[in-house]
């Protein structure tokens, strides 16, 4: 069974005919070829596929694309400024060496963006709790925690 889905991705309207079972992450990666959103597991545990849907961090592997009908989706490709300047949260990850292999990074940044909106001055503990749904195997989280604390301060509660 195929369905027509329409949504906004990184500010741009997109629509496609898809098999109804197509996951949002598959639509983003395979149809839109926005491959910055990653798939690291098949049980909604790792968070590498995190995107913002209507401003809220969700795991794009755990909903089908048609559940995002009419939604406003932001992926990692839409976070930096159009001229390429990094968003303060991205810059904080770079400055604090908050990434190594880079595979979990897009999900980490997207989750952090949502978190930082409501936590402009987060504590280490709050940041660690916010990362419950995002796995990293490279960094030991040390510099991710520092990055998010610095990025949140730089954002000042605004996306």
């Amino acid at each position, binding site marked *: 069974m195929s369905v027509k889905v329409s949504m906004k991705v990184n500010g741009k309207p997109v629509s496609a005919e898809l098999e109804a079972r197509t996951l949002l992450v598959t639509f983003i990666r395979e149809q839109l070829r926005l*491959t910055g959103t990653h798939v690291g597991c098949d049980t909604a545990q*790792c968070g590498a596929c995190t995107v913002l849907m209507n401003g809220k961090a969700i795991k794009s592997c755990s909903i089908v694309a048609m559940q995002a009908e009419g939604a406003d989706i932001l992926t990692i*490709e839409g976070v930096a400024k159009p001229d390429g300047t990094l968003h303060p949260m991205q810059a904080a990850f770079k400055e604090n060496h908050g990434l*190594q*292999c*880079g*595979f979990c990074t*897009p999900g980490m940044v997207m989750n952090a963006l949502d978190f930082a909106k409501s936590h402009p001055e987060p504590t280490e503990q709050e940041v660690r709790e916010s990362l419950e749904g995002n796995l990293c195997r490279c*960094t030991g989280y040390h510099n991710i925690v520092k990055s998010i604390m610095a990025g949140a301060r730089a954002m000042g509660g605004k996306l």
Partner: protein
Amino acid sequence: MTASLIGARIQRKEDYRFLTGTGMYTDDVALPGQTYAAFVRSPHAHAKIRRISLDEAKASAGVLAVYTGADLAAAKVGGLPCGWLITDVNGQPMKEPPYPPLAQGKVRHVGERVAVVIAESLAQAKDAAELIEVDYEVLPAVVDPAKAKGAPAIHEAAPDNTCYVWALGDKAAVDGAFAKAAHVTKLDFINNRLIPNAIEPRAANATYSRAEESYTLYVASQNPHVERLLMTAFVLGLPENKVRVVAPDVGGGFGSKIYLYPEDVVVTWAAKRLNRPVKWTAERTESFVSDAHGRDHVTTAELALDKDGKFLAMRVRTTANLGAYLSTFASCIPTILYATLLAGQYTTPLIYCEVTAVFTNTTPVDAYRGAGRPEATYVVERLVETASREMKMDPAGIRRKNFIRQFPYQTPVALCYDTGNYDATLDAAMKMADVAGFKQRKEESLRRGKLRGLGYACYIEACGIAPSNVAGSLGARAGLFEAGEIRVHPTGTVTVFTGSHSHGQGHETTFAQVVADRLGLTMESVDIVHGDTSKVLFGMGTYGSRSIAVGGTAIVKALDKIVAKGKKIAAHLLEAADTDIEYDRGVFKVAGTDKQKTFGEVAFAAYVPHNYPLDKLEPGLNENAFYDPTNFTFPAGSYVCEVEVDRDTGATQIVAFTAVDDFGKVINPMIVEGQVHGGLAQGIGQALTEGCRYDNTGQLITGSFSDYAIPRAGDVPLFKLDMRETPCTHNPLGVKGCGEAGAIGAPAAVMNAITDALGVKDLPMPATAQTVWRSMHKAA
């Protein structure tokens, strides 16, 4: 003169693409005419295949082909080779049963590949895979290495399920020393099986060109040249010049992406058959059952001491689980990379280690971050700490009493340490961890109802693998050098090609620092290229913390050649003798004068050779080097872990973790610290959370992130790090390598701390809340 880039905390060149979603991992590669593969895997740990019904799958929508082991056998596709031959105690070669890419009549572990479906879409491939019926005759399975010997044979070639029994050391002398010892400390333990779980699942995407009769394989690999060599020479029988292997951005490896895997072979073979690109990407569930696992040792270890706590001898018996098949480097991990490290940082004069390596009906086991060295460190450091408690000696004091202080030091287990300063790291770690204030903190914890414990681990590792001739004499079937190339462009910018591979380690930055510093260039003027056999001259790849020590040295050797040629060009331009030219970071100068040429001017002259000694010198500025190390490097360090255990729940919190490492010279401290953080988290994961479990029928019962707990952000603390620098004596950078240290030292430090808190001799890893709670209640 600009400040040196060596030792500078330079932000990473590779970060921008990862932070903006513009990295290119294997699954991101989409080729024209792309098809997709889905593997049918065995649900049984041990079974005969009676029949495979493929008709329905072949007729399913979008299906292009279905292949089984029979198709590969008919096409004369070989089995996967093992890269290291171990010779057993009787001088016989280890047992090497065949490892077919797709099962041939029998399956030997859950997750073994039985068939592959290739279809127009991934969904179609998976749908069709569901339609394949396999009729199995289930056989009894063995998963526990200690029970492998008497169990039904897994391979005809190894009737007692034993791959080899191997030993190192003088058994009689060791037994003699034990007989005379004032004290013997003995521990029986299991070094728990771990599942690597790089966050990027393995993936492979192969394409074939009829016009060029050549293949290109994109694969999540740590060593593309090794992958190509093994696949072409041993499995597919293809000429290497017709196979290009590209390991693009790779999302972590930790050892699990060193090996040649069956899926890589199958998609490459099928790409030609179908004349279409074939892509396979592991689902995490597949990763759990098909990526090589790590560790899984059952060990009895003993330390003999005199009455003053001086170590007299060590005796270790280990049964190592190799899983169902010999993975690429499986055989050397519990032997060459394990027993040779049992001296640790100590002068123990006599060591004997016997290793029985067995096959079981489990996923193959191979190198995982540290590879043999974490297991050795666990043996040594748990023994030492336990001995100090039994003899009522200070655990730091007993270590100091036995530290090696004279270098070079020949251990009784084959290695020769070139340099080290173990007092320096232990002193620094104890100060940083405020060991002096521990007693007070322990009392304070007790008032809150918590048990506090402190544990040490003083580790050593052998990195920079390896002198090829030494490795060869020990059974390695490959060389272990590294290659580098410096290509200077006419305007003086540089592209560097390295056989090392970066999958998170930051080579694009660290190696650029080395080159930019030597040539007096900006970081922007130097690019590092790696991971593509069509671009890089050769490479043995990244594992064993060898990138900077071996790969970095190859680059330095190539730089030496660039500078030597540059001097000749400069001498001509400056009308001086070659021998009068001095070089320092981008400036060629006639000694004792102010006459000079910059690196850029020399490079330009090499490519626009109008005023150039063409009769004596070729134009151009491009040099290669291959570097084969003369010894291993020996990073070492001291870790202090402090834990609090909740008496009601058994939950353990790491309240402080201090790591002082000696990696020799450090190029980029920010990156090195990051490597330590990551290693520590994996080591803490082994100690506290990661418990791979099979049931007794061979089903992996920890087959997802819900059941197998790699550490989350809440499971680890902020780490306290420092470094001491004792430069390596036998490479020009003085570097040792840093990638595995954390994973090597942390498990013993954590377990020493928990056993200290509980006042028990030993506890199995992972020390989950349940394990600790049970121990407390058993003790009470």
